[in-house]
């Protein structure tokens, strides 16, 4: 029958020639190919010691940023939690006391801030939603763990180190 698509190819199966039946030329050729790979650079990255270089727009673990004076930027507005398609973010807001002036930038702050790393899909929408430039996904890969509860990261793991500690 005529092929409508015109893509049909009839494959011819020829009997093997003498050289092909001897196997040896093909074997020699194949062994030449494999031995050439002995001298090629291996693709392996020794993971725990060496890490693969990420692209510049890689999204890893979240970090809650501080401003230039070392105060936490987050005001617990909840826009990140609202924008999160995976509902990974929760927080409880609190009012800043006068003696905490050096800790938080504005009068309202996040008393607890939790991200469930098992829910998070690392889409970066929280980063886009944040009006205070307080959250960025600029960390490393979230490490593996044994218990589900250990994947809920609180402020202890998320907030950036204070300025003096960074130096």
């Amino acid at each position, binding site marked *: 029958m005529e092929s409508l698509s015109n893509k049909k190819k009839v494959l011819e199966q020829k009997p093997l020639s003498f050289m092909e039946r001897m196997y040896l030329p093909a074997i020699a050729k194949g062994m030449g190919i494999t031995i050439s790979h002995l001298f090629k*650079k291996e693709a392996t990255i020794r993971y725990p010691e060496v890490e693969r270089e990420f692209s510049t727009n890689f999204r890893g673990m979240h970090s809650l940023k501080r401003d230039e004076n070392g105060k936490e930027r987050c005001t617990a507005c909840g826009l990140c939690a609202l924008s999160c398609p995976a509902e990974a973010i929760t927080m409880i807001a609190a009012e800043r006391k006068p003696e905490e002036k050096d800790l938080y930038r504005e009068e309202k702050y996040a008393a607890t801030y939790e991200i469930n790393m098992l829910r998070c899909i690392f889409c970066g929408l929280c980063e886009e939603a944040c009006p205070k430039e307080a959250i960025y996904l600029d960390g490393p890969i979230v490490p593996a763990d044994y218990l589900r509860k250990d994947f809920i990261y609180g402020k202890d793991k998320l907030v950036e180190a204070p300025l003096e500690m960074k130096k």
Partner: protein
Amino acid sequence: MDSAFVIEKFILVAVIFGISLVIAMYSTYAERKVAAYLQDRLGPDRAGPFGILQPLADGLKMFMKEEIIPTSSNRFLFIAGPGLALLCACIGTAVIPWGSPVLIAGKTVSLQVADINVGVLYIFGVVSLGVYGVMIGGWASNNKYSLLSAIRAASQNISYEIAMGLSIIALLLMTNTLSLKEIVDQQHGWRWNVLYQPLGFLIFMVCSFAETNRAPFDLPECETELIGGYHTEYSSMKLGFYLFAEYINMFVSSAVMAALYWGGYNYPGMDSMAVWLGPTWAPLFGTAVFFGKICAFIFFFMWVRWTIPRFRYDQLMNLGWKGLIPLAIANIIITGVVIAIIEKF
């Protein structure tokens, strides 16, 4: 027979046994490394520097595994199988001449355990015994897949033994002896047999691939068709014995190939080296050369394994019966005619 002779032989046996076990052990490591480098990977590198302790870790794993003997199996034969496989693999080393006699403490020590005048036949006998380990193991498992695999192993080994024996006859026509020691000594310096018997060597090599059940003739072992092969039912160190026996077989057949065709411990310029190094170190250097050749052959075995896809069963039989056996017979005839002509003129 004086006691010094017994002690000397005993030490030699222990050393050779130890060396062949260590080489077989590190062949498993080398196999994984060679495979890795041929595939642009790194291979095992976690246990010790460069993964050098990997064989120990593997051995420990094998010992720690649970040992299962199927209830419906023939218990005695089930246990005898892997033992026989390993034993047959090991005793082949007895007649291989590892070096020319060494002068140690004023005494000339032969580096061959037993210089029997039918050394080549002995090797053949031991190699053909090796298939019994596989057959007994496969049969005693009381498992259809194991049995099928054992049948494959047996028929493959028997088919290729014929071509192997025929290829060696052409060599024996030239050397006029069955003693491995004499065959090696005849290849003094450069007169390696491979230069006179290239076709015979090729047939012998292909057959030893089949005899050791290595790729591309590793049909007795296959996950897809036989869920593992003759050692499907084996676990723990019994499985380890089978895998280990394969590597010892590879070592022994590398040694046989190096001794019969590639000059054994002979190398070009060995006479001037003998004068320079003296009667103790020159033979030991020859032994080192021999081991270098063996290691090159082991590498070749691995290189082939990671290059060539396996043969189909009918292709295997075709190659053995219709390809190699006629070639080997032709080789005998040509060798015989050439020898007759040379003797005549």
